[in-house]
Every structure is written in structure tokens, then in C-alpha cells.
């Protein structure tokens, strides 16, 4: 009889440890959500659906980019069914624009509250409700204890949690599975055509639990995410600039 190789044993152990940590439990559906290379940064190359993802943005433009990226992610997660909850204490989302980024605005339930404490309460209640696909919480600060609490809640249900921190004071440690930073890049457009084109972002995974952080360039067209290699994106950028100037 062959002994399983050392590599196999390590692999099996890794899977079990991840399951114990509440990430990628066996039995969950592990289908790709179209993020391509970015998904490879996560443990075992799977985007963790039952986890809290933290997004930070330090200026209104990147907050808008983050909201856009979030709604594209929701489009892949929702798959044209179910509801998602968008909890916020300072909401700027313009509902009709969500349709342009892939999700049906009527499938999003907005909860607008006065302070971050209430937002966290509603996010936690939302994460408990398995009928929801995802919960987005927009707030300013998130302490380690609060994020841990959310992560523990999420391990019971299978709702994906997104916390969008707009203009936070500091980037403190949290228990979130990943920390994302989205900033806008020049839009995708055929050279020579007028207009600003489809959105494109610099997606930075600043922290991934058990994964490999990195930076990517990602665009969104009505057909889905579009991936760019670094070099090609740079030429695009200058071309676009030259075209209008």
C-alpha cells in the first residue's frame, strides 16, 4: 500500500484547519464568482463566502469606486435571486445606477440609520438571516471586538458580509477575512471614441487571512469582470489621456 505523500497530508490538514476557522466549510458551494486571478489570493483559491470582507476608502471617489465594485460582487453572488441588505449611516448610493452595475435595485433593501452602533446591530441581525444573500454595512469605525462578533455570527449562517469603512480614522486590526482597497482608474474605452467608458479599478487586497495579498486591475463591462495585466493597462491609460488632450 502506498503511503500518502507528505504534501497530501499537509493539504488535508490545511483544509481541516480552514474549516475549523469557519472559512470554506465543506458542504458550501465553492463556485467561482468571476474574479479570476484575485480568487487565487484566497486560501485554496476560493472566494470565502461565509466571511466578513472589509473595504476601506479614504476619499469620496474611492468610496464610489468601492460601492461600484461591491455591487458588481453582489451581482455575481446574488445570481438574479434573493435580497441583499445595504445598511448605512451615511448613504450616497443612487439606486438607478445599481442596474448599470449588474444588480436589480429593487432587490436591495436599504436601511438608513443615524449612528454606527445601530448599523452594526442591523448588520448582525442581517447576517443571522439566511434568506439574505449578502449584507453590506457602511460605517466609519470597526473595532476588533465588533468585527470578531460579526465573524462569529456569520459562521452560523451562510450570508456574506461586506463592511465598507468610509473615511476611517485609522486602519486598526480587525478579524475580517480580507481587507480590500478599491481606487478608480481611467475607464475602459476603445481608443478614439469619446466618453469615459466602463469603470476600471485598482483592486488591492491589503490583507488576506491565510492568503497572499496583492494588487490587480479590474474592469466591469455588462458581460462581467474584465481582467487586465499591469503593462497593458498602463498603455491604455496614456492612450486615453492623449486622445482627449
Amino acid at each position: 500500500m502506498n503511503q500518502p505523500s507528505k504534501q497530501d497530508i499537509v493539504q488535508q490538514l490545511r483544509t481541516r484547519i480552514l474549516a475549523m476557522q469557519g472559512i470554506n466549510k465543506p458542504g458550501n458551494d465553492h463556485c467561482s464568482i468571476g474574479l479570476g486571478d484575485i480568487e487565487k489570493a484566497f486560501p485554496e483559491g476560493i472566494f470565502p463566502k461565509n466571511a466578513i470582507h472589509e473595504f476601506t476608502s479614504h476619499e469620496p471617489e474611492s468610496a464610489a469606486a468601492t460601492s461600484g465594485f461591491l455591487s458588481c460582487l453582489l451581482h455575481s453572488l446574488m445570481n438574479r435571486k434573493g435580497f441583499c441588505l445595504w445598511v448605512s449611516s451615511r448613504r450616497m448610493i443612487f439606486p438607478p445606477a445599481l442596474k448599470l452595475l449588474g444588480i436589480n435595485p429593487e432587490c436591495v433593501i436599504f436601511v438608513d440609520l443615524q449612528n454606527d452602533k445601530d448599523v452594526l446591530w442591523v448588520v448582525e441581525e442581517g447576517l443571522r438571516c439566511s434568506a439574505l444573500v449578502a449584507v453590506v454595512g457602511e460605517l466609519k469605525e470597526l473595532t476588533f471586538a465588533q468585527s470578531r462578533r460579526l465573524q462569529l455570527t456569520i459562521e452560523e449562517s451562510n450570508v456574506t458580509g461586506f463592511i465598507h469603512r468610509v473615511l476611517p480614522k485609522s486602519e486598526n486590526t480587525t478579524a475580517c477575512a480580507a481587507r480590500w482597497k478599491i481606487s478608480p482608474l481611467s475607464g475602459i474605452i476603445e481608443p478614439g471614441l469619446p466618453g469615459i467608458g466602463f469603470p476600471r479599478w485598482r483592486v488591492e487586497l491589503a490583507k488576506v487571512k491565510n492568503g497572499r495579498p496583492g494588487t490587480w486591475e479590474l474592469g466591469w463591462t455588462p458581460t462581467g469582470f474584465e481582467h487586465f495585466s499591469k503593462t497593458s493597462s498602463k498603455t491604455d491609460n496614456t492612450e486615453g489621456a492623449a486622445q482627449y488632450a
Partner: protein
Amino acid sequence: MARRDAKLKNEPFILYAPERGRMVIKASSKSAHSKGIFPGMVVADCRAIFPDITVMEYPAGKAEQLLEALALWCVRFTPISATDLPDGIVLDCSGCTHLWQGDESYIAHILKRLENFGYHVRAAMADTVASAWAVSRYGKNQTIIPTGEQLSALLDLPAAALRLEYTITEKLEKLGLNKIGQFANLPRTALRKRFGIELLKRLDQVSGFEMEFVQPVQPPKQYLERLTCLEPISTAKGIEIGLERLLNTLCERLASEGKGLRIATLRCHRIDGDEQEIRVGTNLPSRSARHLMKLFELKTSQLQPDLGFELFELEANAVEPLAFDQTAMWVETNTADTSAVAELLDKIVSKRGIKVIHRYLPAEHYWPERSYELASSINAKKEIEWRIDQPRPIHLLPIPHVIEVTVPLPDYPPMLFFYKGQRHQIKKADGPERVEQEWWLQQGEFRDYYCVEDEEGKRYWLFRSGHIDGGNSRWYIHGFFA
């Protein structure tokens, strides 16, 4: 009065009240009646007839209060009991008399109870309120009018038994029509011409052709569950158990009727007479005791049991038919999901109010701020599609912000703009997209929208309000693209 003071029982006495500068008798006792003293006489006259009579002031409003209390007391005979001012009580005894072995013993029982209290009462039972009223006040010996004989039983009674205005009865008497039988069968057109529509209406009410409504003193409550406790309950756990029991019975009943409740009230009667209530509402009709329990749990801390509650009442104030599952065929999402989401929303609403929850549907407006509207419920469906033919920013400023711009030529997008002290050099631009004012809603300048991207790749939605050469055109930033 005689009830309160045993001394007055057999003594003649009268109650008076001032009316148009005279002291007029409002009520007189039975023994005063026999002396020829009737309500409506002046006190001075009556003193002349009978000098020893006891005279007391008429307590204003007392009669109405007493009548109301009596009507409430009569609830034990029928749930629908109403006061009929100034001196009557109407009981709707449909389906109640068999509990007292028939109509005769029912009336006899009520009369006996009231006479024991010391009241002088007359009663009649008929198919219509009007005929019962007439017979109870003017009838000779009959108290129960058989079905279908309402009008014929009244033929011998005077016209005043029809509750007519004084002017009409006077006119009838002048014409020699003293009894109802003398004019009840006259042609209706002639009656209307001479006495007005009022007389016909009253006659119809007697025969039952015209509906007559009574206002019960205790409005019937359809969905009410009561739980009386042997020992006063003062612990949170005790309240919880009581509430759970009430919810279970109420929800079972709702389930058997295919209904769900929207608003429920829990009333707790404290042992010292204090009454406290908590109320919950749901987004979708619900009959899940577990879910309602959760909603109540958020509020039970408001109750102050002190010495303890002795009675719990759970009432479903608003009940709606529960949507059948078949309708799920027409909904994009399945209803099981919707109800779970609705339960979550109920929880949020009961903690932070209904105003925090928003769900949007497209509206038929070009003006960006009006291009969407609040959905009425979680099941509301869109009637038109969302527009995707024009670019719209993901973030919209609640109020457009004024910016400084440099524009090369009229109707060209700006070359650069200043926003919050920062200079943005524009590299790419698209536009203008003109959005006209909806003049039937609002007056003002139109907007020319431009989508622009600066050299760092940040995308903005700018607009100029009004013509560039109009003198009062301003530039604004209105949103951020993703």
C-alpha cells in the same frame, strides 16, 4: 335616585333643571306620577298641586352616564348593546335568547334583574329597532312582536311612536291621523308631499326596508384572547409564558382562518387597576407565534409589573388575509425567502421605526432625484424597467455642490474644475445630456449633464444649470461614478 336612598322609595319627588329662565321638571317618581305631576311642568305649578313634594336639582349628564353604565352591564345578555338617548338601551339579541330558554324568559330575566336594581323598565322585542322602540314605549300588553308583523303591531299606536319630529306629529294630529294605522297605507307620494321624507323613512325603518344602525358601547373585537392569572404575575419569565400561550391560541385561530396579523397589542391589567400596553407591527401579515414573540420580546422591558399583572389581553388590531403560496409563481424570488426577510425587517422596524427601511422601484421621471420612488412593501413589483441607456453615478450628492470651472467654448465640457479646494484636470468627457425641468412639478433651469474623468482616473458627474449665456448659469458637481 330611589336606588341610592331607600327613604325615597315610596315618596313622591321630582328633579328639576333650569330651562329658558324657568324651573322645569325633568323627571318625577312613580308616586308623583300618580298625583298628576309629569316631566315638562314648571316646579311652581307642581308645588301648587302638591306642596309636600321633595324637590331636587337634576344632575346634568348623570342620566347619560347611568345609561352608559347600564348598557355596559347589559353586555352579559348580548355582546351588542347600545345606548339610545335619552332614555333607552338597544340590545341586539340575535342568537342570544336560547341561552335563557327562549325569547319570553330572556326578556323576563332582564326585566327582573333591572327591577331588582330599582329601575322601572319597559321592554319589547321585534325584528327592527324602530318597532321595538315604539312597542316598548307605547305598546299596551304585547312585548314580543312576531317576525313579519312589525308594521301591523304598530297600527294602533299613536304617531309619536314613530320617533317623528314634533312638527310632523302635530300636522298629523291636525288632520285627524292620530294612529299609525290611519296613514301607514296611504300612497307614499302623497305622504312625502305633505309630511316630507322623514315620515317615510321612519315607516320603512319599522318594516325593515330601511337599515338602522346602532353604535355598541363596546365595539366588538374580533381577535382578542384573554388570559387571567390566579396569582399576580410580576416576573419577566412569567409574562413571557403568558404571552406565549396567548400568541399560540391567537396564531392557531388565524391559521384556521387563513389570515395573518399586521398589528398586535398586548394589554396588561395590573392588580392595582393600572393598564399598560405594548404594540408590535409587521411588514407582512404573519401568524408565526415564534416571530411575534421575538417582536414582543424587544418591548416587554417597557412593562412595569410592580405588584403583578392579573389579566393579559392580546388583541390583533389589524388582520389581513395571508397570501397563498400559489402566487409565488409570479414572483421572481420565492416567498419563503420573502417572509424570512420580512421577519428581519419587522425586527428592525420595531427597534428603529419604519422610516429607516427603504426599497426602491423605478419612477417615470427624467429628473435624477425623482427617477426612483419608495416601494410600498417588500412584495411590490416594478411596473416599468430601470433605464440603463444613460450613464448614472453610483454615488449621488444629496444636494449638488457648486464648483468653479474653466470652459473652453459654450456647450463644451469643462477643461478643469475646482472641488473642495482641489484642482481636477479633465482628460475625458462625455455630454451634454440635457435634463429638462418637469414644469408640471417644479419651475427652474434645465440641467446639462457631463460625465468627466480627471487625470487620475476619477470620474464625476457635473452639470451646468441654465444656458451658458443666460447670465445665471452655474456649475455643480452632482455625483461620483464607480
